[in-house]
């Protein structure tokens, strides 16, 4: 890895994924800097999930090149998986395990030594104010708590990058903001955040935002520059301007 690349968490050049005669992701290129909060937006069916799967080592691209945390998306998928965290609204924690059991389980999977695990686990429970709930089943926690715990679990092994797939869907506006405070803290510690959301106010909280339309990246810049460029009041208008011309949906 050369010096120039040391500050780059994700580097993608012409990454493409074809399913039969359908090009789900069409030559996308971008760089994400270390510690950056990168918003990955797009309409349903624009190709976000397919792209995310390639960057998290779950799917091999059809063409193009990319590295994630310095590892190649074709040859080093296992190393990628060890160096990233992942959280989505649909899957994050095991509902039928307790809070403590979930932490032990995910810590174990990511190879955190048992001694460190206990210390880290207790620190986290204290920080989240979940000490009294540690023996409760995750299914008994309110959604807001679950999401905060799920995020903590996703970064429990101090990954270089964490992928968040619509992490705040259905969460109340106060909890949504608390969740973003946790994202800021993680980013301050140097963890790179790659996040998708349908809440356009959250796009404003990102350092830079890309907007995918029909498999391509239609725009990529800071929220301020995007608004300026599209002469828009807010990110909602920017998104609407770009995505309303989309030809395909999910």
């Amino acid at each position, binding site marked *: 890895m050369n010096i120039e690349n040391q500050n780059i968490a994700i580097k993608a050049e012409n990454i493409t994924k074809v399913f039969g005669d359908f090009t789900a992701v069409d030559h996308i290129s971008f760089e994400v800097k270390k510690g950056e909060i990168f918003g990955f937006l*797009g*309409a*349903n*069916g624009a190709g976000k999930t397919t792209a995310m799967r390639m960057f998290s080592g779950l799917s091999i691209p059809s063409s193009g090149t990319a590295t994630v945390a310095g590892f190649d998306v074709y040859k080093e998928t296992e190393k990628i998986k060890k160096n990233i965290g992942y959280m989505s*609204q649909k899957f994050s924690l095991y509902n039928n395990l307790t809070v403590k059991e979930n932490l032990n389980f995910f810590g174990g999977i990511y190879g955190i030594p048992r001694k460190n695990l206990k210390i880290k686990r207790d620190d986290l429970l204290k920080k989240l104010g979940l000490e009294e709930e540690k023996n409760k089943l995750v299914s*008994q926690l*309110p*959604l*807001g708590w679950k999401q905060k715990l799920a995020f903590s679990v996703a970064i429990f092994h101090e990954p270089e990058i964490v992928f968040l797939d*619509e992490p705040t*869907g*259905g*969460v*109340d*506006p*106060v*909890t949504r*903001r608390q969740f*973003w*405070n946790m994202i*800021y803290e993680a980013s301050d510690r140097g963890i790179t955040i790659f996040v998708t959301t*349908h809440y*356009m*106010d959250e796009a*404003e*909280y990102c350092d830079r935002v890309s907007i995918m339309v029909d498999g391509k990246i239609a725009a990529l810049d800071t*929220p*301020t520059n995007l*608004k300026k460029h599209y002469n828009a009041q*807010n*990110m*909602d208008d920017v*998104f*609407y301007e770009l*995505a*309303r011309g*989309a030809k*395909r*949906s*999910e």
Partner: protein
Amino acid sequence: MTSVVKKLFSKNKKMKSIIVQNLTKTYGKKEEKVLAVDHVSFEVNQGEIFGLIGPDGAGKTSIFRMLTTVLLPDSGSASIEDLDMVKDYKKIRKILGYMPGRFSLYQDLTIEENLEFFASVFNTTVAENYDLIKDIYIQIEPFKDRRAEKLSGGMKQKLALCCALIHKPKVLFLDEPTTGVDPVSRKEFWEMLQRLKKQGITMVVATPYMDEAALCDRIALMQEGKILSIDTPENISNSYPDFLFEVKAGKTSKVLRALENFEQKKNVYAYGEYVHLTIDKNENFSELKVVEYLEKEGFENVEINPIKASIEDSFIRLLSH
């Protein structure tokens, strides 16, 4: 009672499509008992769009399941078009349409087959009520031989709406029809609902998106099984009791942290590109104080404007109590 008063009274009564009184529902046994719906009361006028606004777990789906007669309440009562939710459930089922949150169509039937199936269940035909769904159906008609499982999210949503409408219901229940849907499709969906409203259908819509609240005629803000406030979106915004300002002075997270320690602050939170700051109306406050404070903290180009509260601002205030 004079006949005129009587007439007015009955007319007034007729205007209510849904009347809900003290509806309560608990789940689970003794220690794990969860109060999902806690003495909820509200009324929905005929032909209006009524929004149940709240996060997951607020009790929206439980209310929907009771009103659509698939779940019995612990206590309380409700009527739909003067029919009792418990006694007249068979009649109610004929006049209501229900679009549940989870995709509810038959995956291995085509678009056309699903629609015909739902029509036949209600002893009607697609042709009979085609006018009602025409606007929506023509958008998916080119794919009418495609199986439901092969449809995109937006197409599934449109088909589900057609199926819920095909028996020409008087009342339509939509449980989070736009959750997980992108902003453009959300806008289109609400345009469809506005067109249905013109046909006189009463609608109850549940949504976690605060911006959709503004598109309803009246809304109930919900949290943990309770209704916190019911009114028109306009009145809810206008009755915001504190001073509210938007502040911008560089990086949001830094401005937030600084304003946390501002003496007269009541609440402060991120709001898109701005930070929203609330101040109690009893405070002797001027915007200049914020500017001076932030400049002293090292911020430049401080921008502060008084603004009208959005539904999200009102909701945050209610949750912070």
